[in-house]
């Protein structure tokens, strides 16, 4: 059942949805677009008054990698592979580490006031819901706010965002995600990175479906909604929302757009440096090229490329270095700039081939 107009105002008026223990609202997203769903979190965080009321938001995404607010995507995941496979990259506003989402993973967001922010309680609720379904399921919450299956497999990770008056705690829950894609995209191939960004702690993971094939996403969502409804003494009723509906969520499309900008996804990476080298094979000889760069706000601030002397016309490499300064640390911008720099030089096929080889290798760093 979609959100009727009269309910829209309920999201904005404080304390209308009653209940002895305080109001509550369970929302589920109709979209599997990671940016739209993250925008809904933002919207609820900014717009909804949570005095005397709590909100639970349930959502799932098409394949995407989601990094934490202060993380470095080059350090955390295989961006090259993701581009090839069409897996999106999103940066959320909460802290914590990197996770892989697909439709076999469910996301739960618990919205409360700052004062009522309590992660342990939320996770214990999830565990209760799981045990209600399967009493003999060996799941418990660790002190790192993970949910662990069988004592060793992580099935849920947590992150949180605190604002001035409201806060939210969200967590994942692995039902039937593609573990091989998960492990391949969450392995970074980029070498020589030095950064103060929050690093993820890798864990062995397992799907609940592997424990019991009947534990589908739908079943788990039902169980958690029921447990939440019981806890907050509200009607077990899940309201579906469309994250693209401006009428119900005014201003949501701007929030979605902001989350997709390069400046947010890559530009918010804390300052980092790369110091690496690569070997190029050109006409039976192997050349080593050293690259040193400093990247701030996702842009190359300082750049140094060390190519063997005489391999390229004098000054051409310096031209490239000058062009790259200020450029986004991104393969297509670097490609365009590199191609343009080549125009300033008289060309022959030999030079072109060498240049293309150098540039292809540079792209591999991004």
């Amino acid at each position: 059942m979609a959100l009727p107009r009269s309910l829209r105002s309920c999201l904005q008026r404080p304390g209308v949805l009653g209940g002895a223990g305080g109001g509550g609202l369970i929302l589920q997203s109709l979209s599997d677009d990671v940016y739209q769903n993250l925008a809904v979190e933002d919207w609820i965080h900014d717009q909804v008054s949570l005095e005397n009321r709590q909100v639970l938001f349930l959502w799932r995404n098409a394949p995407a990698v989601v990094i934490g607010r202060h993380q470095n995507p080059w350090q955390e995941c295989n961006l090259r592979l993701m581009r090839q496979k069409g897996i999106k990259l999103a940066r959320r506003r909460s802290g914590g580490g990197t996770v892989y989402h697909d439709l076999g993973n469910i996301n739960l967001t618990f919205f409360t006031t700052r004062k009522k922010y309590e992660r342990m309680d939320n996770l214990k609720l999830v565990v209760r819901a799981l045990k209600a379904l399967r009493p003999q399921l060996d799941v418990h919450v660790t002190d790192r706010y993970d949910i662990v299956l069988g004592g060793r497999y992580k099935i849920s990770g947590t992150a949180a965002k605190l604002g001035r008056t409201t806060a939210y705690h969200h967590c994942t829950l692995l039902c039937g995600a593609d573990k091989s894609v998960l492990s391949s995209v969450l392995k970074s191939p980029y070498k020589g990175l030095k950064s103060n960004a929050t690093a993820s702690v890798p864990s062995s993971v397992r799907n609940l479906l592997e424990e019991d094939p009947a534990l589908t996403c739908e079943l788990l969502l039902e169980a958690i909604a029921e447990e939440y409804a019981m806890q907050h003494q509200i009607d077990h009723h899940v309201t579906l929302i469309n994250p693209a509906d401006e009428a119900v969520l005014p201003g949501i499309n701007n929030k979605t757009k902001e989350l997709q900008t390069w400046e947010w996804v890559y530009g918010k990476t804390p300052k980092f440096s790369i110091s690496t080298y690569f070997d190029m094979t050109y006409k039976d000889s192997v050349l080593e090229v050293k690259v040193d760069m400093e990247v701030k706000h996702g842009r190359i601030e300082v750049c140094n490329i060390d190519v063997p002397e005489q391999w390229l016309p004098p000054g051409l490499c310096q031209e490239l270095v000058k062009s790259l300064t200020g450029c986004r640390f991104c393969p297509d911008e670097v490609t365009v700039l590199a191609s343009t720099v080549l125009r300033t030089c008289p060309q022959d096929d030999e030079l072109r081939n060498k240049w293309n080889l150098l540039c292809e290798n540079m792209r591999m760093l991004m």
Partner: protein
Amino acid sequence: VCVHHVRSCSSIRFIKSKYVCLFDKSALKFSHHQRLFRTSSVSCGQIVQFKLSDIGEGITEVTVKEWYIKEGDSVSQFDSICEVQSDKASVTITSRYDGIIRKLHYNLDEIAYVGKPLVDIEIDASKGVAPEEDVVETPAMSHEEHTHQEIKGHKTLATPAVRRLAMENNIKLSEVVGTGKDNRILKEDILNYLAKQTGAILPPSPKAEIIPPLPKSEGVPTAPKDKVRKIPVPVSRPIAFSGKDKTEAVTGFQKAMVKTMSAALKIPHFGYCDEIDLTQLVQLREELKPIAQTRGIKLSFMPFFIKAASLGLLQYPILNASLDESCQNITYKASHNIGVAMDTEQGLIVPNVKNVQVCSVFEIAAELNRLQSLGSAGQLGTNDLTGGTFTLSNIGTIGGTYTKPVILPPEVAIGALGKIQVLPRFNGKGEVFKAQIMNVSWSADHRVIDGATMARFSNLWKSYLENPASMLLDLK
């Protein structure tokens, strides 16, 4: 709250500040003047140490991850100051006061302690120290107020001082248009609202829009009496125009453009334009489109333009050449690598189709499809973007007829195609018919290419396109 009464002013200035305070305590109406003066006057407010408040869950220390402000910036209450992180939680710290940031106590990635000072804020002496507790954003209001808020869909933001001003003047905040950040209601907004209500004209503030004088009407029949009476009086509306000039560094695609254009400037360009009747080609393409579709390729006009250009280059190879730096040698390139200018969201890129001289029209179309999809995904490789020898730019897809394209070095010629228009033309029998007309604008390097060569090449290219069957004779 620990308040430091820092007297950072000398004795002379101190006297002045007292004066300012006294002045301020009078009619609130004039306080917007004070706001304008604030930035230029000497700072003599109280420095308040804003401490990091309790995060919850017994957390005592956090890491500072990002500063949203720097020393010297002015902040309003509820503005974001910084982002800190603790154990997977990211916390936005907002300001409790209006004022100017005087000191940041931590650098990025340093550990900050709950209960210890985070920033020093200088607040207005006149305003006094703000209360310890956070002011509730939505004060108790009448039911009508509520309705207003629902319609707007967001909470009205205003500092306590502004709310007091509104209350004292019996103004409903929901009826005031906020011009501050996040639609926050500022003191100016209340004053504007008041002015509208009372019909008073406030003295023009420096930020007011300049209303252009009414234009002189020419020959428009109006009563001369009216004209005389309507002397344009610039209405000074103190509108808070918050637009500012924005300066950013030239980077990325723009930088590439700057480099290319600077190099192109060295080439003496001459232009040659003509009109092509594409009526027959339009029909031919309509017939061939479905065939290409069955092979999974979208067929536009470009493959024909490109192939015809290549046939022309076989006759006039100097247009597919390159001049060296010293202008001593011309290299006639064997391959016809024809570049096609493409507009992407980041800027203009020119990938090229390699070896057009040995490609069929269909193969060119397939290659264009490939380059277009890579281009829109931002995945073009350096091989696709280098090695071009001649370029065609289809600006006509956006609009325009004639243009003056700039040659992309190290090439010596470029053609820009305007849009296809349906225009009346005369046929051989002197009858008017509907023709599909497109304009082409060529630019060539006048150091090595003369007008006659360019004209002959253009005529040949034109003849291939106006009579596509003739291409069959020369196709290799």
